[in-house]
């Protein structure tokens, strides 16, 4: 019974702005509203000024079709728009022009999916094309603000809405789903998820036995995992106290990192959907879809396969590389001047990712270029530096932007291949550790200890292979050495 309660179901509703469009969905107004003064990128149409009429942005249909194909959707052949009627200050017309899958309507596309790395398929029931409402700005938090300021610059921006089935069973899967979606959008070039508020997510969470809770206002993908974890803990703790979870909408407060109740739904809100007569139906011809398909860029899943095949990388590494387009691009740029793809991939997916995660930094803003990583990888590949030194160089170049060889030079980190120099250090180490030398002939551990000492004495500048060779020669004579 207690196990039953713990079963989590998560569904996501994601809104992605088609940021590659230069104008809004139903008017010619500039859609690049970020950084503009409030209420300056507006016109009679997106303001719902009396008498104005919407006109479809044909490019938006093209972009939406690209997304639909990339997410394995079936695109509807004939569709029209609906009005979703509700009063809210962020709606210039007090209705939203969107699509609807009932009352004779069909979504833009149906039956899409994303496959997670585990092979699990997350079904995406439907996709809609719709307009973004205005942005509400609060004085502090939503529940304490005494005033609400409305900025209509965002009103009318083209959005696609995708709604998944409740197929995800933990926050990690939700995060992975969103990362994959985000990378696909970036690869398509239709939406730039790094722009603030361009991709927004609402999550539905239910625990077995409880009602569905919707969490709104999750502003980034990192926040999704946090919000879901909070919500699951909250619901579990209530359930364990015998309190029933009610169906409600909650708001994610990303400052306090908690969810707060917005409204408890007694029944589904009646949006009085009905067809938008100002816009004629959109007819999607097969020819159109064929053309879109032909122009489709390489998608993350294909790119990972190519990386794996061309560069003999593991599946896991390849998948890590395509998680963000910028990383995959960086990898390919680095390969232009480096021979060792696996070395490069390892620096990028292991060391660099750890570095960025620790600091919460973004690859985009680093001082290093693909050339830095190419040079570093080649230095390791050619045994010019030891791995330990390479790590020092790595941290230095990220901090200063200096080239790796320059750093090696100035920090004197170049590997020493001069055997007479190495022999002197070996001699010193042997003298200082007679017990270890004695054990070394029969104990592999003692050999490693000696090599470790040699590396330390040389501050990592000795090529470990060279050290190994000389130690073996000393212990067993030239013949026994490998």
């Amino acid at each position, binding site marked *: 019974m207690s196990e039953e309660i713990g079963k989590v179901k998560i569904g996501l509703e994601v809104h992605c702005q088609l940021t590659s469009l230069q104008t809004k969905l139903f008017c010619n107004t500039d859609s690049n509203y970020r950084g503009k003064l409030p209420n300056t990128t507006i016109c009679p149409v997106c303001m719902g000024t*009396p008498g104005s009429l919407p006109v479809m942005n044909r490019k938006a249909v093209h972009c939406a079709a690209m997304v639909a194909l990339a997410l394995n959707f079936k695109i509807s052949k004939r569709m029209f728009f609906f009005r979703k009627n509700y009063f809210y200050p962020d709606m210039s017309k007090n209705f939203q022009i969107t699509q609807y899958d009932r009352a004779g309507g069909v979504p833009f596309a149906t039956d899409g999916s994303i496959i997670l790395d585990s092979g699990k398929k997350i079904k995406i029931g439907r996709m809609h094309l719709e307009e973004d409402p205005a942005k509400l700005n609060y004085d502090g938090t939503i529940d304490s603000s005494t005033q609400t300021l409305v900025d209509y610059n965002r009103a009318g921006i083209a959005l696609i809405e995708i709604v998944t089935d409740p197929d995800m069973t933990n926050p990690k899967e939700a995060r992975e789903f969103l990362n994959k979606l985000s990378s696909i959008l970036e690869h398509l070039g239709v939406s730039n998820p790094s722009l603030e508020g361009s991709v927004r997510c609402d999550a539905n969470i239910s625990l077995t036995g409880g009602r569905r809770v919707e969490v709104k206002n999750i502003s980034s993908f990192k926040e999704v995992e946090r919000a879901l974890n909070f919500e699951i803990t909250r619901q579990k703790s209530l359930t364990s106290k015998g309190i029933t979870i009610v169906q409600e909408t909650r708001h994610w407060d990303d400052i306090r990192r908690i969810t707060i109740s917005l409204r408890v739904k007694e029944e589904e809100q009646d949006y*009085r959907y009905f067809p938008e007569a100002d816009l004629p139906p959109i007819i999607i011809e097969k020819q159109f879809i064929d053309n879109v398909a032909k122009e489709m860029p390489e998608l993350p899943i294909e790119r990972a396969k190519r990386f794996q095949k061309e560069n003999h990388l593991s599946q896991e590494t390849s998948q890590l590389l395509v998680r963000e387009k910028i990383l995959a691009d960086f990898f390919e740029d680095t390969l232009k001047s480096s021979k060792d793809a696996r070395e490069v991939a390892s620096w990028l997916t292991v060391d660099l990712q750890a570095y960025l995660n620790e600091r919460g930094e973004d690859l985009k803003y680093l001082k290093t270029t693909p050339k830095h990583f190419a040079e570093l990888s080649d230095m390791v590949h050619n045994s010019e530096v030891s791995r330990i030194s390479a790590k020092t160089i790595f941290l230095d170049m990220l901090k200063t932007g200096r080239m790796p060889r320059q750093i090696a030079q100035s920090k004197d980190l170049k590997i020493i291949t001069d055997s007479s120099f190495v022999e002197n250090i070996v001699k010193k180490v042997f003298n200082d550790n007679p017990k270890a030398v004695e054990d070394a002939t029969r104990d592999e551990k003692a050999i490693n200890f000696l090599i470790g000492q040699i590396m330390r004495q040389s501050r990592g500048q000795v090529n470990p292979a060279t050290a190994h060779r000389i130690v073996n020669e000393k212990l067993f004579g030239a013949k026994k050495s490998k």
Partner: protein
Amino acid sequence: MTRKILETPAWQVAEKIARQEVSSEEYTAATLERIGKIEPKIHAYITVLSETTLEKARAIDKQLKRGSKLGKIAGLPIAIKDNICVKGVRATCGSRMLDNFVAPYNATVIEKILSENGLIIGKTNLDEFAMGSSTEHSFYGPTKNPWDISKVPGGSSGGSAASVSAIEASLSLGSDTGGSIRSPAGFCSVVGLKPTYGSVSRYGLISYANSLDQIGPLARDVRSCALLMDCISGHDDKDSTSSKSYAQNLVENLSKPMSGLKIAVPKEFFDEGVHDAVSKTVWSAIHNLEKLGVEYVEISIPTLKYALAAYYIVAMSEASSNLARYDGLRYGYRAPDGSLDWISAFSKNRHNGFGSEVRRRIMLGTYALSAGYFDQYYLKAQKIRTLLKREFESAFKKYHVLIAPSMPILPFKLGEKINDPLSLYMSDIDTVPANLTGIPAISIPGGLHKGLPIGVQVMAPPFREDLLLKVGSMIESNVKIDLTLGEFTHV
């Protein structure tokens, strides 16, 4: 002299101005003087643009003197229904809600009129947001019928029809959602054309029911009506429902001969509820056409009996959504005691800003679209629309045009039906089918009964406005209306 030029058909005045026989200034000044005299009786206008119109008239005269070739309606003062946006001028929709709303842009029809050098002389009265058939539901008070000022002018474009009828403008624009051009045209004895849905851009027309609304011209004669239609029609990128297949020159077409005309008279239009005088007048127009060699047949369009119900459901449903934007936040009426939360503020603004008829239609429309009722009301109404369209299509396969009354009744007394909305709704029974099916229809003066005008309605297949004007001019040629009978003529 002044009186004579004012009574001259607009198309003739346009020619006289172009030939510089009459100056636009002189004509406009005479019109304004007439407005000054008769407006207190009629109240056709909400806004009169006296100064700017005269100024523009003088500019037109100057250009003509310099020998410039100007547009088809150069120098004619035109009245615009106050739900059509003219940049920098209030567009009130006859509502307290938009009492302070100044349009920030020109409707496409206004751009077109200006590009033909027409003058915008003022904005005319209407039922609030075009919801009504009598022009009594205006925040600014009713317009009166120039033929009998104790009677309503019809509606909702009552101001537009009365302004033309009472010679307060040479031409006017109205809008027709369920008969709002043809009803007042019939009641005021002017020609009023509701064009095919999609033949005139709706951009800048403040929506009442956007799948039915259509802007159209009103004039005192068929040819002048055709002239204004030629100026405002055509495709517009700003209106996605605007058609690319409308390309007509109606004025030119009027002079082309036409023979072998076949008309049909759907008997449903003459069912009970139609005033005897109305039936008689329409039939006499039909018989006169017969004398001109037109064949006629009586037919039946069975779905017509559901048209009125379907119309009101569709119109009110759309209205409930179209009028949702009026919340007082961005523009329009705001209740004085503010600082409420937005829900109470919206409610208060809307309650105080809208009149009772608008509120009634919003509530009925909201109800019809609600979950659980949507299928039995809205969807069913749309099905009736489809059926009706099919029945009209099959009729038009055999006959060029259909003939019916414009209004089933005679102009009634102001206030007579104001507390009886259903009986007022009933008066739209003959006009709504054209809106539901999107076809063009025209009201032509058919004669007077005890001094009260009766309109004859002609309907044609989509984009066959040419047929309407042709038949209209035939009806017109048979009807001699003595203008001296109208009350407005004594002023």
